[in-house]
């Protein structure tokens, strides 16, 4: 046990008072000698009252309720600020936060001297959503920075705790360039470990400027671009056709008789429920297709019929839930981050589904939404032969296997299906023409969703690429495709990411290097 000097002072002081009490002519004698009911009464009451008051005030004075009562506005509005409790405010400001670096040691968050020590984010808006921001007591923090401020409280120390992210700032920058100013997100993940190499978001914000009220209100009030929301992690979009590999997975897993076994012919339209609008192929009919062909051409009729007519909505949902669609995906990180839920993604299912929405499950509309980082985990899992790793935030942790189930056989079959869209005639064939010359084998699926009631018109490219036995998943989600198709919009972005990965040598290093 560590005894501080202050505790020694308290002990010595107590000893002195004890000595005084025990001395001849001391307190006991004096108390006995005191005559008169008034003096004794008052002295006793004052003693008891004072001790009780000190204990009360110094152990349970400022309860959260009372604090809330103050902040709720029984006080003049202008005087109530988040720094109301000056002690907590000071502690929060003087608390040292650790350094946040990327996997190569580039500083993402640290202190800089500019008249005073200031918390700064050298990577600026590139990593804003991952690293988050910290503004002392001024605003609620975000991301890793917020988790760091709470870490000291939970550990009862005042030491800076460093975090080395699995993120690669170069890849993050490339992803941001690939997005090219479109609203959306790109996630790059190491399939063998679950390390998140890049999670780029656009629109983004400048974490150095959230201190300033002007910038802050601009960010908060911008409900159209919502720069403070991380699209890669916290947000989700209609998956469109990119749900199809998982619908195929459901059918294969459940052993559902496939449409081609009963002579399915794509006529270009499908009316799942009487009296509802039909699901169309935008003017073309694919004719007699099997699952591989349907995947290559992204046949809406085939997959709608499969999902709604053959598998059924409820079994399909159960299957999707078993691969995490109803979960808040937890990070593979030191416990503090999950504990404070600062980066946990949203759940996927849309509330209030009606029969029409259910019938559109097979084309990824209206009933389900998916989250880029979740889809990246799924793609990495398929590449891994059905073993899913939770996304790894920090460098140097052991991979953490999720409890989702997919048999290796089905993973192999899905991999074969995912090859289709890149084959000639496939939806992403044009974008990936010639990628083979780099030796990278890419598997993926495009997704071009219709306009949703929330006004979004997302498009997806979910994929993974393999070379030298190393596999990386790349997921590109664009919020508003503006009439373009995923094969022309998202797939080229994904291709740039694969080329960047190859350029940085990720495909040549053995798995788990730098661990």
């Amino acid at each position, binding site marked *: 046990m560590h005894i*501080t000097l202050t*505790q020694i002072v308290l002990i010595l002081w107590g000893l002195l008072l004890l000595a*005084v009490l025990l001395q*001849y002519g001391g307190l006991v004698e004096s108390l006995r000698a005191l005559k008169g009911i008034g003096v004794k009464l008052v002295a006793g009451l004052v*003693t008891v009252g004072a001790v009780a008051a*000190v204990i009360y005030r110094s152990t349970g004075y400022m309860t959260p309720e009372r604090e809330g009562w103050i902040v709720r506005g029984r006080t003049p509005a202008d005087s109530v600020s988040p720094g109301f409790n000056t002690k907590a405010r000071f*502690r929060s400001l003087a608390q040292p936060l650790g350094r946040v670096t990327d996997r190569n040691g580039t500083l993402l968050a640290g*202190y800089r001297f500019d008249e005073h020590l200031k918390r700064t984010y050298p990577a600026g808006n590139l990593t804003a959503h991952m690293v988050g921001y910290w503004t002392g007591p001024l605003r609620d923090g975000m991301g890793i920075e917020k988790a760091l401020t709470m870490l000291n409280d939970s550990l009862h120390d005042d030491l800076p705790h460093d975090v080395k992210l699995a993120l690669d700032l170069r890849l993050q920058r490339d992803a941001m360039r690939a997005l090219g100013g479109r609203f959306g997100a790109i996630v790059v993940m190491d399939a063998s470990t679950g390390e998140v190499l890049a999670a780029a978001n656009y629109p983004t914000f400048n974490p150095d400027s959230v201190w300033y009220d002007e910038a802050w209100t601009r960010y908060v009030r911008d409900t159209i671009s919502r720069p403070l929301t991380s699209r890669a992690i916290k947000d989700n979009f209609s998956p469109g056709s990119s749900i199809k590999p998982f619908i195929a997975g459901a059918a294969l897993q459940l052993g559902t008789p496939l449409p081609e076994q009963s002579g399915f012919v794509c006529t270009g339209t499908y009316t799942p429920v009487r009296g509802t609008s039909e699901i169309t192929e935008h003017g073309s009919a694919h004719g007699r297709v099997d699952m591989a062909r349907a995947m290559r051409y992204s046949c809406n009729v085939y997959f709608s019929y499969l999902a709604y007519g053959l598998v059924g909505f409820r079994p399909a949902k159960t299957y999707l839930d078993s691969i995490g669609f109803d979960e808040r995906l937890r990070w593979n990180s030191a416990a503090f981050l999950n504990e404070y839920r600062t980066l946990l993604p949203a759940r996927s299912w849309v509330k209030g589904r009606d029969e029409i929405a259910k019938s559109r499950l097979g084309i990824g509309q209206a009933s389900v939404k998916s989250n880029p980082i979740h889809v990246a985990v799924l793609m990495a899992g398929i590449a891994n032969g059905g073993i899913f790793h939770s996304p790894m935030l920090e460098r140097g942790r052991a991979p953490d296997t999720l409890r989702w189930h997919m048999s290796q056989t089905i993973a192999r079959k899905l991999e074969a299906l995912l090859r289709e869209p890149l084959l000639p005639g496939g939806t992403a064939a044009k974008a990936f023409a010639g990628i083979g010359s780099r030796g990278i084998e890419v598997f993926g699926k495009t997704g071009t969703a219709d306009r949703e009631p929330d006004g979004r018109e997302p498009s997806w490219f979910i994929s993974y690429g393999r070379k030298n036995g190393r596999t990386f998943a790349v997921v590109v989600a664009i919020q508003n495709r503006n009439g373009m198709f995923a094969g022309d919009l998202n797939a080229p972005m994904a291709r740039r990411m694969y080329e960047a990965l190859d350029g940085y040598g990720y495909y040549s290093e053995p798995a788990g290097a730098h661990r």
Partner: protein
Amino acid sequence: MSRAVSYPVLALLVIALVAVANVAVYQAGMEWFVGQPSLWIVIRNVLAVAVIVLAGGALIPRDGRTRSAELVLLLAAALFGIGSAVQFRLGADAPRQLSNNEIAAVRDSMMSAMHGRASEAQIREEAASVVRQRNGALRRDFEQSRIDTRLARSLEAAYGPTPDTRRILESRPRSSGDSILFRVLPVLVLLGTLLLFGRTSAATLLSSQWRLAGFYGSIAVCLLTLVYLMMSGGVRGANFAPQELLKLTLPIAWAGLLIHYRAAFVANTRERFARSPLVLWLYTLLLLSSPLLSFIVVRDFGQFLVISIAQTLLLGYYTRSALYVVLFVAATLATSMLLLGDTLFTGTTLLATLGIVVGAVVVLGALERFQRRESLWASASGVLVLYVAAAFVLVRIPFVMRLLATPRQRFLLWADLYSRHGNPTWWDSSRQIVEALYALDAGGAAGRGLGYGTPFLIPKASSDFVFAAMVEEMGSAGGILVILSFIALVVIGLRIATKMGRDTFGGILVAGYTLLVASQAFVHIAGTMNILPMTGITLPLVSSGMSSLLVSWGIVGAIVALSARPANAGQRLTIRNDDER
């Protein structure tokens, strides 16, 4: 019972206690403080306490030396020493605020700049706001550099020195601490008092003719103080607070009054009271008027509260009855109700006041029935009812309302700390009490450790809120030790007084001094905790503030010196009232 521990051992214990406390502050200061503390302050603080304990102990006269006197000296020295460590801590790690001279300079420059264009009151107000702004800027700068120091220290510990952290830590100024006079002058006052009273002339001073001279002299000093205060423009302008001097002189006047008019207060004989309740009323009024007078002139609500509580307790002690205490508490509560009246408890004010009066009358009745003095009950209840009726009318007179504006605000703050009453400046006024409450709360059971808390966030931490600063760093354990030390001091002081004789001039004098210390500590501590209205009173022996420290040590010196008179002197010098014989 034997003397288990000898004086030198206890003296060494006190010195060790003070030394450890100061070293703790020094150690924490080297690490965290904005101003680098110097070892010289530690040495000087410990030396001051050592001189008090050793030289003071040696100066207590051998022949009349009692254990009680020694213990009073030791307890006072321990409080003073802990106080010096806290002052060291607050002085080395606090925002510099404008000194009185700088404030005067600001006011003068405003005067010359705005002369003829604005009234003097406007200029004063303007100057005050300038001073507030500059103090606020100094405070913000300090807080920022305190944060920088702490961050730089933590970062260096984790990552090793960098140019930035070195620059911050090496540019720390050396702190000069509080003035050395705060440690030297109190010691001189104590030793001087001991020499003056203890060695040569205590017996002479307490003899009949000198006693009367002292009595009238003290009344003269009281009046002169009041005149001086009226001339110098009240409390705020003065560097030295002369109203503190009242604490030295008033007990002499009380002792004289009580000795002279003993019969009026100690109603052993019910006949006397039955004959002349008017006498009691008159003398009560006379006694009550002395603090009231000081309040009216000085406008110092805190001193008024301290003096009236001490006086009430003295009357309780002297008459062996809770009568005056109950009267005082009831009157104070009733007054506070009337003062808070129209804003806080609209409609129920009168009811509450009536309730308090009736309750007090019931308590008085029970007390007096217990002691078989029904007539006293009747007169006391009459006094209370009359007082409340008079107060009810008086607080509605505009002149009195203006006079009571400050205490009224204090009472409102006390009753409803977080409320606003449509007053935008309300929060500024309650802010300092809220800070003190946060400090008490931050301390917890054992405190943050000396030097490791943030007491500089409390306004006036070194004087008016020193108890909050202590509790933040030493916890409720430290707070309770402070309170117990004061209680021990007071109980032993009263014992000395009782030993000297309840009816002797010297005995009443010692009791008066002791109870003044008690009531001042009570008002300070309770005010800090928002149990009483906050009045801006120093904690005796602990707070900084020259006048407060000197007067406290004068009082301690007087108690020790008077207690150490030859044992038989008390009887010889007792002069009973002629009526009694």
